[in-house]
Structure formats: C-alpha cells, structure tokens
C-alpha cells in the first residue's frame, strides 16, 4: 500500500512540475498565473501527504524530500510575485539541507535554492544580499567538484521511481546548467554593483560554458559574443575583441544550417536573421575603426600628423613582442572545442589585431571594415532604417578619415575626404531635423570639419608652390566657405524657437559649439582676397568670433576646461588682430 501511495505522490509532484513549467506558458493573458496556482495547490497536497507518512520513515530521506517541496513552493511563490512567502519556503529548504549540502543527493538542490534566493533579494533591490547567496552557491559548486565530483542527483529525482532515475550524463548536464546559471546571475549582480570587469569576466565564462554544454541558441549566442567584443573594444583589448567577433561569426553561420525548431519559418524569421547578420557586421566595423583610431593616437604628433620617429620606434617594439609571443597566446579566453575553435582561429586570421603602423597595414584593416560596411548596408537601408543607415555611413566616413591619416600624399588624402563629403552631403540634405536633430547636428559638424580639413590640405599643397595660382586660391576659398556654412548651420541648430542663440550653452554642446566658433574665426583668417577692404572685413569677422570665445570663458569660467588650447590661441589672436587691422587700415588710407 505504501508503494502505491508513493507512486501517487510522485505522480502529483510530476503534474505540478509540468503545470508550472509547461502548461503555464499557455495560460491566457488575463490569468497569467493560473497553472502556477494549480501547481501550488498540488504541491501543498504532496506536502501534507508527506507529513502523514512521516512516522516510521527515515528522517534524512524525509528531510530531503521536504526540502524539494519547499524549494518548489518557494520558486512558485516568487514566480507569482509573492516574494515574502517565497523567501520563507526557500529558507526552510536550505535549513533542511544545511547538514547534507555536500552530499550528492543534495548539492544541486542546495545550489538552486541559493540561486533563487539570490534572484529574490535582487528583486528587492538588495543586491549585496543576493551576492552573498550566489557567491556561496559558487563556492559550494567548487568545493563539491573538488571533494566529490560525481554527477549529483537532480532535485526532481527525489520524486521518481527507481527505474526512472536519470543517467549520470543527464545528471551532470543538469548540474552544470544550474551552476552556469549561478555564474550568469553573478554576472548581473556584479554589473549592478558596478564591478564591471568582474561582470564581463562572468559573462564571458557563461558564454563559454553555454558552448561547452550545448545550452545555447546560435543567433542569440552570436549576438552576445559580438556585444561582448564591444566591451573589449572599449578596453582596447583587440585580441579578445577579435576572438569574440570571430566566434560570433562562426556560431552565427551555424544558425542557418540548423533546421529551426518550428518548421514554419516565416519571412519575418528570415528578416530577423538578416538583421542579426548585419548587426554583427556593424560590430566588425567598429572593431576595424577602433583599431585604426587607436593606432592613429599612438602615431600622431602634437599637430595630428604621423610622427615618423614614433613609427620606427613602434615597429621595433612590435618585432620584439612578436618574437616573445611565439611562446603561446592566452589560452583562457578561447571559445569552443576543437572544431569550433579551428573555425574561429581561421576567421581571426582575416584581420589583424595589432596596431597598423603604416599605410599598407592600415589599408588592409580599412578594406575589411569597408566590406562590413557594405554588408551592414544591405540590410540597414535608408528606407526603413534611417538612424542605423546613417550611423553606418558615418562609420564609413570615419574609416576614410583615419585612413587618410596614414596617407602621405596630400592630393590623395584630399580625395579621401572628398569621398566622405560625397556620402554625407546627400543624406544630410534629405534628413528632417524635426525628427533627427541629433544626427542632423552630427552631420553638420562632420561636413564642416571635413571641408575644414580639405581646406587645410589645399593650403599645405599651395604652400609648396612658388606662387599660389588662381585655381588653388579659388579652391581654398570655396572649401573655406563651405566649412563656414556647415559650422553656421550647426550653430543655428542650437538657437531656440525664437531664433536666439543661447546665453549659456548646455554642457553636451559646449565644446562642439566653441570649436565651431573657433574654426569659423580661423577660416575667416584664411580666406584669400586681393581686395584689402574685403580682407579687413574678414579680419573683423574673425576677431568677433575669437572674441566670443574669450568673452564666453570669462563669463562662464567652467567652460575653460573644455577649450583650453582654443582659448589660448583665441586670446592671442584677440591681442594681435587689432594691430594687424590697424596696419592694414593705414595701408588703405596712408594719409591719415
């Protein structure tokens, strides 16, 4: 009789679990917890049946079974937003298990109870408390693996007939999964505690374990890895970043091969896949861009030109490092087992992860980036994806900009900037600033800056000539005018509805606005004219813009920090220009 009674108990327990895990997903939106509530009622029944059978039973066995029920009830209550009740059940579960937590039939349940207590406390905003539970779960896993290491029982097995019990392989899989969850929750906890590096490390380990235990969806995994690569980018860890991206690309390509779970793959799913692919391409673009830009930072001198001494020095240093690196690279960060790993390494070989030090090396990275620009644009077309499309074009422009840094020939460099103009100008012309104010400002500024740079290059080319020819003069003047036009458009976008320029600039536009003013001042100084009166006018305008900077910083000393160099030069010009203008005036009217 006891046997059949037990079978009924097990059956009830199993039903409760199915209700909770499977049926509940089909609950109507108006009663989201219907199945959870039914499961709860069943669990309560099981609990009562168990206490009725208490007499004569073996104490330890009973305690563990009760702990399983408390665990299930605890999870059930937290799932239905009843945290306090959930906490009580989970606490009772851990109390019952405390003496046996290192034994194979309890360890997994104990870890899962602690995971859930961690979740519960985080929902109460008590992250520190959550952290304690989760870290102790992590420690218990490590201790168990060190001292025992055999695949432990899964909690559900406590309510199973002997013949249904799981294989060691299945046990191990479920146990590892519970631990992966511990790490994943810890990643979140560290993130909330702003322990960024640690959080990233736990995210990384979670991803690695997902691969190892095949607990992943390729597309999702790939996106996560690609996103993680962006974290490494912000830390300038290019090798790690590239590894994540290569792994993302490799795992993503699996997504197309695996037949989807539901056979009715829709147009929408296809669309989603294309979008994900484009997203990963965009991460690659950023990779190439950052690598080039960081290299530029290393190589440039104080006026932003390539410093040949620095270049030689870095090349020598790299040679030395390469010799040392032969000893082996960091193993810890590698994703995947042999097969996947090989594909990832092959993928990595397509682009360097060390700083490019000359034009040739920079060009190779540029080309990889440019290919990804094309790939990303295939999905993110301007019709439907305005913001994304423009961001990609901006990246493309930035790639040209940084490539131009490595180019020695000024004429060719100028052509690269012209390419930027050609891609940015038409988009800017179409864009409605009522909806895209921010992007519109970015484009104004970037166009202004590009024209400014081209003007500087033309001046430098002109300076090599014996005498400026009229064609070059015309070119310089027109570039300067265009730069002024776009800087002014940017400054106008800061005006309020009544067209008044703000008395005090908002912090986020302070520097760009001041730089725009400063550059306009310089541009008026560069305009070439043989008409002395016109020249005087230009000098006057230039002086006004320089004066703006000086006056503004006097009035708002906080602004000085943002524009130190510009301010210094402006002060100098405000001192010099009146004298020069005086001299010019004297030349104009020599008899006064």
């Amino acid at each position, binding site marked *: 009789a006891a046997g059949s009674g037990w079978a009924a108990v097990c059956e009830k327990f199993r039903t409760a679990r199915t209700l909770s895990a499977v049926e509940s997903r089909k609950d109507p939106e108006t009663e989201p917890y219907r199945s959870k509530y039914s499961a709860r009622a069943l669990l309560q029944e099981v609990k009562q049946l168990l206490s009725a059978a208490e007499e004569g039973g073996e104490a330890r066995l009973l305690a563990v079974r009760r702990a399983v029920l408390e665990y299930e009830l605890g999870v059930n209550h937290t799932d239905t937003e009843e945290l306090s009740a959930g906490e009580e059940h989970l606490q009772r579960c851990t109390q019952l298990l405390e003496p046996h937590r290192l034994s194979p039939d309890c360890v997994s349940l104990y870890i899962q109870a602690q995971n859930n207590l961690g979740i519960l406390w985080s929902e109460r905003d008590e992250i520190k408390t*959550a952290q304690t539970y989760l870290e102790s779960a992590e420690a218990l896993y490590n201790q168990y693996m060190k001292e025992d290491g055999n695949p432990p029982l899964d909690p559900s097995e406590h309510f199973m007939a002997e013949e249904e019990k799981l294989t060691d392989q299945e046990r191990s899989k479920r146990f590892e999964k519970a631990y992966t*969850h511990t790490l994943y929750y810890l990643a979140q906890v560290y993130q909330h505690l702003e322990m960024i590096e640690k959080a990233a490390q736990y995210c990384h380990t979670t991803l690695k374990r997902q691969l190892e235990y095949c607990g992943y969806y390729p597309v999702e995994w790939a996106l996560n890895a690609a996103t993680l690569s962006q974290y490494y980018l912000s830390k300038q860890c290019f090798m790690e970043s590239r590894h994540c991206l290569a792994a993302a690309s490799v795992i993503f390509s699996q997504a197309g091969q695996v037949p989807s779970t539901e056979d009715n793959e829709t147009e929408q799913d296809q669309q989603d896949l294309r979008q994900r692919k484009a997203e990963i391409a*965009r991460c690659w673009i*950023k990779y190439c861009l950052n690598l080039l830009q960081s290299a530029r930072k290393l190589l440039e001198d104080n006026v932003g030109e390539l410093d040949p001494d620095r270049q030689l020095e870095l090349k020598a240093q790299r040679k030395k490092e390469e010799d040392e690196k032969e000893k082996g690279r960091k193993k810890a960060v590698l994703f995947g087992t042999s097969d996947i790993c090989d594909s990832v390494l092959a993928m990595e070989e397509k682009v360097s992860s060390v700083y490019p030090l000359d034009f040739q090396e920079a060009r190779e990275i540029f080309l990889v980036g440019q290919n990804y620009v094309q790939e990303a644009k295939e999905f993110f077309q301007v019709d439907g994806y*305005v913001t994304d499309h423009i961001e990609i074009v901006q990246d493309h422009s930035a790639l040209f900009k940084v490539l131009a840094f490595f180019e020695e020939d000024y004429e060719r460099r100028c052509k690269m900037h012209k390419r930027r103009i050609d891609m940015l100008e038409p988009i800017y012309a179409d864009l409605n600033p009522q909806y895209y104010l921010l992007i519109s400002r970015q484009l104004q500024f970037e166009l202004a800056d590009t024209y400014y740079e081209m003007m500087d290059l033309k001046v430098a080319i002109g300076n090599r000539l014996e005498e400026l020819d009229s064609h070059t003069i015309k070119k310089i003047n027109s570039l300067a005018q265009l730069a002024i036009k776009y800087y002014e458009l940017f400054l106008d976008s800061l005006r309020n509805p009544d067209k008044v320029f703000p008395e005090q600039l908002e912090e986020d*536009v302070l520097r760009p606005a001041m730089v725009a003013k400063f550059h306009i001042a310089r541009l008026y100084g560069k305009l070439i004219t043989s008409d002395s009166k016109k020249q005087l006018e230009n000098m006057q305008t230039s002086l006004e813009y320089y004066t703006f900077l000086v006056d503004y910083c006097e009035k708002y000393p906080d602004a000085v920090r943002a524009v130190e160099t510009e301010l210094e030069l402006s002060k100098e010009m405000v001192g010099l220009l009146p004298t020069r203008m005086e001299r010019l005036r004297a030349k104009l009217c020599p008899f006064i």
Partner: protein
Amino acid sequence: ALPSLNSPSVEGDAIKVYVRVRPPSEGTALTDGDQGLCLSVLSSNTIRLHSKPEPKIFTFDYVANMETTQESVFSSVAKNIVESCMNGYNGTIFAYGQTGSGKTFTMMGPSDSDNFTHSLRGVIPRSFEYLFFLIEREKEKAGSAKSFLCKCSFIEIYNEQIFDLLDSASAGLFLREHIKKGVFVDGAVEQVLSSAAEACQVLTMGWRNRRVASTSMNRESSRSHAVFTITVESMEKNNEIVNIRSSLLNLVDLAGSERQKDTHTEGLRLKEAGNINRSLSCLGQVITALVDVGNGKQRHICYRDSKLTFLLRDSLGGNAKTCIIANVHPGSRCFGETLSTLNFAQRAKLIKNKAVVNEDTQGNVS
C-alpha cells in the same frame, strides 16, 4: 491658483516631471489614520517621503496633492504641450506609476465610464477638447487661408510586440523610420479626426482592446503600454507660398511600473524564466550594460532599445516637449513602489536632448 510653470525662462529641453498623489481608496484612510501614509506634500513642488531613519525630500516641477482636480492637472501639465503642438513641435505626455496609483484615472478618467463629458475626465479627453478648440480658433482667425488635418493612431506594446488597438484583427506590427517623417508604426490604422468627440470615440473603442491581467496580488493590472498619437498637419497659403507644418502629440499610458523591471528603466532583475534553455536570454542585457558604461569609445550595441523607447526616441531627449506624470499612492503599504517611482521621476528630470556631436579635433588647431 497654480504657479506659472511655463514661463519661457525655465523652459529648456529637460523633461518636465509632475508628481500626482492620489487619495487612498475610501475606507483605508479611515482605518489607517495619518500614520498610514508614507508621504506628505510639502509645497507645490516638494514632497516628503517618510523613509527611515531619515525622511527623504524630493523636488519636482510640480507636485499635485490629493485634492488637486483633473482640470488643474490638465492646465498645469498638458495645456502648454498642446499649444506648442499647434506651433509645430512634437509633444509627449507619459503617465508612470505602479498599478493602482491612478495612471488611468489621470489620463482617462474614472475607469467604469466611457463618458468623456464627465467632470472627472482625464488629461487625454481634455487634450482633445483643447486641441480642437485651438484649431477652430485658428481657422476663424485665418479664414480659408489655413486648413488642418488631424489623424490619430492607437497602438499597444505588449511583450515587445506592437498591436493596433484600432484594428484588433491585425497581427504584430513593426517600427520603421522614414528620413522625412521619423519613426512610425508600419501598417497602423490612421483615422482622420474632425472633432474632440470623434477622438474620444476612437479612444474608447481602442481602450477596450487593451490587454489586462489579474493576479492574486493585483486585481487588474495593465500589462502593456498604450500610445495614442495625434498628427496635426496645418497648411497655410500666403499668396503663392504654401507653408505646411506637421507635429505629433503622443499620449502614453505605461504598463504598471512594477512590471517594467526587465526594461531599461530599472534594469534590475536576475529573472529566471520557466524555460531553462531560454532563461539566459537576457545575458545580452547585462553585456549591453557593460558596454554602455564604456568610456565613450566607438562601439555598436547589438540590442536595440525597447520598442517603446525607440518609438518615443524623439520624446526622450529628442526634439520634443515631454512631460512625465508620476502617479503615486500615499499608503504606507506602497512605500517601496512609491520610492522607486519617485526615484525614476528624479532620474527622468535629468534626461534631455543629448546632442553629442562627433568631434575629435582637439590638439589639431595649428
């Protein structure tokens, strides 16, 4: 009389935040007495939360106490936004707060009536009335030279999917962008409106299609965000020149704030979904958060903002006038949620137009 809130000098891009304290439901106030309240309104812009050990004081653009009428909420919150909408600006009004804090009452009016002539009608019907009043006035002033076209759409965002409340048969819809028109919901029904009464009818019809849920904790909680959008287009003929202006007015009823912990607003939840395979899916959010705090380096984040923030991107720190009405329940049992609502509202005040310009010419000034 209410203080003037909208004098031009204080008008910036920052989002305006209003807090409204609802009266406790009848009965509870009597039994709980004054001790039962977790907050008190100190002035028309400060509120004190009786937290322990130290009480906390919050300052907002405006704090409406329990006695504040619907009419005065409308005039201090929405009037100005409707006016600037007539002048070609986009405007957005959000209601935020825990289930039961009075969002629907504030935005719509008493929940059991579809009657928008009721003196308790809320911000949305009053905005309709005012908008059409302004339109009529303009038309009278300008005669045949000026004409208006108003259209509305009403959508719901539930589980990151978009549904059309004006066409309950429609399947999920998608957000798209147009280089001239900005963000729009592709395929959403747009209904032409000619009067406030008509707008109210559309609202009532759509409202019935919303998704609500009841749990043993909450009798009725809205699980979705509802966005009612009016497009106002005006055409003015001045001799041969035709001047067209267009603006959007978004009226948003957010899902109960206690439901939003998985979105960016709170970002806090370790969350274990029923399906163990799926439950790691928000790892991406964690990584995204890590990249977010990166030091301004160029990067791309694979996960786009939520549908709601994408749709209302303009309103959240964009080129629009936006205000948030944070609703709170004064009962001491609501302390936790009230605190988190006030904290949210405090943060919302900091949101403003983030016009970051790509600019790296420092040191390049030779």
